[in-house]
């Protein structure tokens, strides 16, 4: 024990290569504490490496369990914030496109909102493409509004005050909102009336003969 202490002292002295010529601390302020000798209480043939490794292992194991617990607690909270299965099931709607003949409108309900699906004829596609963009209140080409030109999919909510426009009516051969008289063309673009924007396009994709909105 004494040997250990004196070797500690020499190693400390070795670290302090630059010796101080003037000590700023008073002699009385320096510690006079003498480390007790615990030699009587130590085990004989004690393997210090073993007990140290054991102590660190136990500390690490506790850390492992706590971090695993903390992780699953956080995960539980986060997963409780995600959409539940019934919400996810309602979030999409599938439409069989084969049942919609050319030149017909279909309205489906998606998340409580009407979605207009129109199977457009070639003449209607040509008409939608022939419109001069400078005439439009909300300029947008027809190609920007459809993924396949023959299928027009959009939210059936008037951008003015949220009425549901009537299909195949109005001055532009598209939709007409009866509430305040907004006219939409065959691409769902606002042409006349108080509505400021074109009819909104939801996210959708085609899967063979099916349309998936959402």
């Amino acid at each position: 024990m004494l040997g250990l202490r004196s070797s500690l002292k020499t190693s400390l002295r070795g670290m302090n290569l630059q010796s101080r010529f003037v000590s700023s601390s008073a002699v009385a302020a320096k510690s006079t504490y003498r480390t007790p000798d615990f030699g009587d209480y130590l085990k004989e043939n004690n393997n210090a490496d073993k007990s140290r490794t054991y102590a660190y292992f136990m500390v690490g194991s506790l850390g492992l369990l706590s971090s695993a617990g903390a992780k699953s607690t956080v995960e539980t909270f986060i997963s409780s914030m995600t959409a539940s299965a019934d919400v996810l099931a309602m979030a999409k709607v599938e439409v069989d496109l084969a049942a919609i003949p050319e030149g017909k409108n279909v309205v489906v309900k998606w998340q409580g909102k009407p979605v207009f699906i129109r199977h457009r004829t070639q003449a209607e596609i040509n008409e939608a493409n022939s419109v001069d963009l400078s005439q439009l209140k909300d300029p947008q080409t027809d190609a920007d509004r459809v993924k396949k030109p023959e299928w027009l999919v959009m939210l059936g909510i008037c951008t003015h005050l949220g009425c549901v426009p009537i299909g195949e009516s109005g001055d532009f051969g598209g939709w007409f909102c009866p509430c305040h008289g907004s006219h939409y063309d065959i691409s769902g673009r606002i042409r006349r009336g108080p509505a400021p924007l074109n009819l909104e396009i939801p996210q959708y994709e085609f899967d063979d003969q099916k349309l998936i909105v959402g």
Partner: protein
Amino acid sequence: MSFSTIYNIFFKRNAVFVGTVFASAFVFQAAFDTAVTSWYEAHNKGKLWKDVKLTLGESGDDGDDEDDE
């Protein structure tokens, strides 16, 4: 491997120590989850939905999950 080697590899640097703890927490969680799930399923064999579903498949399941709006 002596104890001082273990100490020098894992415990000497705190970054290595904490990193080992976090990495093994991930491994432990996956292993623990798998073990508990497999025990639970073995313990409740025949009562779980995936077992019941197979017996129902012979009589029912004529596609009545299609909504008719």
